[in-house]
């Protein structure tokens, strides 16, 4: 067996918000706010999972690593910019986030083109294994370039902490939730109102019929990958700026959580992914509140397994007629 040289996988990169000095003083409001905040992250990543799954029924295992890639692109861009005055950090962050979105989107398109497209129509097992391979390549590709140790993100969002009905809410949290919200609203508009969005929805219903109707299926799939990956990339930059530390395995658990969120909401359903993200955020916040933070991930996976067994179509998913 090869020697184990890789650093420890982070059990959760998003634990910072639930570390409290004295559990007795925590109010329900705080837990709800934490759930909302973490949930909006999950939702942003879950969207990519769900969109891709909806359109080509592929479980893009590498999606979490796109999030990681986004964080590292942000890291590289900010590092090359040099010192940024604290007053400009929000602006710089937005610019870098846009850049990262474009690049991760492009990476998503390339991955689809070279790894997934040749396997369209291949057995599901082969496609899944490919996705695992892509995930591995991204993780250890970044590890080879940036080194296996965690890196400190060049800018750190800092701001006042408000006390709103007992919950400690920081300015960066509000900013990040706003960004996530705006991105999701834009996405919803795109999918509902534009012709590409319509094409996406029609392909997810029936790819062959869409092809016959003259929809450029490959192009639409590429765009779906672009958008999904760009959202994950944005989430990566935001996570880097908020938590201050990034490493090449940061996408692993988040990817799993995002998948869980997508399943909770009803995979393939965009609104479901947003809802699922929030639900998972709450479930985790309350779960770690009651059982202890170290069981947080266990709690999330238990919810995933429960949902898959009892209601695999999720909250908003439609019942699918049985096989044959």
């Amino acid at each position, binding site marked *: *067996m*090869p*020697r*184990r*040289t*890789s650093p*420890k*996988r982070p*059990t959760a990169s998003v634990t910072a918000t639930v570390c409290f000095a004295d559990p007795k003083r925590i109010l329900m409001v705080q837990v709800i706010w934490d759930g909302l905040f973490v949930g909006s992250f999950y939702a942003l990543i879950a969207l990519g999972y769900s969109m891709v799954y909806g359109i080509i029924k592929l*479980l893009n*295992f590498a999606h979490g690593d796109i999030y990681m890639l986004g964080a590292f692109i942000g890291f590289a861009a900010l590092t090359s910019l040099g010192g940024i005055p604290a007053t400009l950090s929000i602006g710089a962050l937005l610019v870098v986030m846009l850049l990262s979105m474009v690049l991760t989107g492009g990476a998503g398109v390339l991955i689809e083109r*070279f*790894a997934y497209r*040749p*396997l369209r129509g*291949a*057995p*599901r*097992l*082969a*496609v*899944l*294994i*490919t996705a*695992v*391979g*892509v*995930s*591995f*390549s*991204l*993780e*250890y*590709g970044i*590890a*080879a370039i940036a080194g296996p140790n965690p890196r400190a993100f060049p800018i750190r969002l800092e701001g006042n902490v408000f006390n709103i009905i007992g919950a400690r809410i920081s300015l960066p949290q509000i900013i990040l939730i706003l960004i996530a919200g705006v991105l999701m609203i834009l996405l919803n508009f795109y999918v509902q109102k534009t012709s590409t969005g319509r094409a996406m929805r029609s392909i997810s219903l029936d790819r062959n019929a869409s092809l016959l109707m003259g929809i450029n299926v490959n192009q639409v799939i590429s765009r779906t990958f672009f958008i999904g990956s760009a959202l994950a990339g944005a989430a990566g930059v935001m996570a880097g700026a908020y938590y201050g530390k990034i490493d090449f395995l940061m996408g*692993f*658990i988040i990817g*799993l959580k995002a*998948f*869980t969120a997508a*399943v909770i909401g009803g995979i393939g359903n965009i609104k479901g992914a947003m809802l699922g993200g929030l639900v998972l955020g709450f479930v985790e916040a309350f779960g770690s509140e009651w059982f202890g933070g*170290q*069981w947080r*991930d*266990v709690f999330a*996976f*238990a919810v*995933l*397994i429960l949902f*898959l*067994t009892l209601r*695999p179509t999720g909250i908003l998913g439609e019942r699918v007629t049985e*096989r*044959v």
Partner: protein
Amino acid sequence: MTENVDTTLAPKKVGAPQSFLSRVFESRQLGWVALGIALLAPFVIATPYALNVMTTAAIFVLLASGLNIVVGYCGLLDLGYIAFMAVGAYTSGIIAKAFELPLVFTIPAVLVMTVLAGLIIGAPTLRLRSDYLAIVTLGFGEITRITANNLTITGGPSGIFGIPGLFEVGDFDSQEPAVFYYITVLVVAAFVLAAARLGKSRLGRAWRFVREDEDAAEAMGIHTYKVKLLAYIFGAIWGGFGGILFAAHLSAVSPQSFIFLQSALVLMAVVLGGMGNMRGVVIGALVISLLPELLRDLSDYRYLAFGLLLVVVMVFRPQGFWPARGYEPERRKMEKLDPALKGAS
């Protein structure tokens, strides 16, 4: 129609592969040759380091042959396979240490625990679609590791130390590296043979039927759910025994050994070798575990290379480098059925 008609019609062009390499690979003696090489290896190189590497490689072969039952034979993607090894290693380690027993006496307990683990993981998930199954097994793998990391009985993040050896009879010490290597090789060979034989039995065929077409299998009276659960349980047992050997080899167990990376490496061995073909899987496992030792200088890039290789193999050669051959004799008379014909793989 007569038997002659059928045999003459057997088209050699669609038939068995002809090249030298594939003939060597298909040869019936290959298994014995491999075992011979494994047994002779310490005579060539027997430094403690080399023995350590070879022992780990042998355990890795055992894991790969177990995962091959699940992924290769039955077509179920298990991304948390290492959890079964964890269950085996922790069970035997905890019991052996608590009762100061040699590890061999923990085998019944390990069997019970791994079968239970297989049932617990398999029962709720095996009705799911294959891609959901993959991610759920991944989740279970993580749950197992996190649980081991957080419980006191498992020693938390630092794990368990000072696990007793496999057995001790008078002066004979099973933990002496060369002795332990031989024990491992023999155990692993037995398990690989058993897995290969299972693959060529009624149950093994049922696994393949399920892999190829679940509905058709069901229409033939095969309880697909039960058959899949059996694949899981056998895979779990193989993993559990890997765990016992692992615990005995290192005399310590910690959660760090059961990260996703390990599951992924075992999966790679199965996929690259050739899903469903035990010979290919053994070779795949040896390549995955020994290659990094030979290419020390490139260690930073080896996982990247493995990942890319996985994608390339799936795109260009999805059946793996040494796929299951899928041929058998056209006609066979009853009296020709000697044990060697279907035996030792």
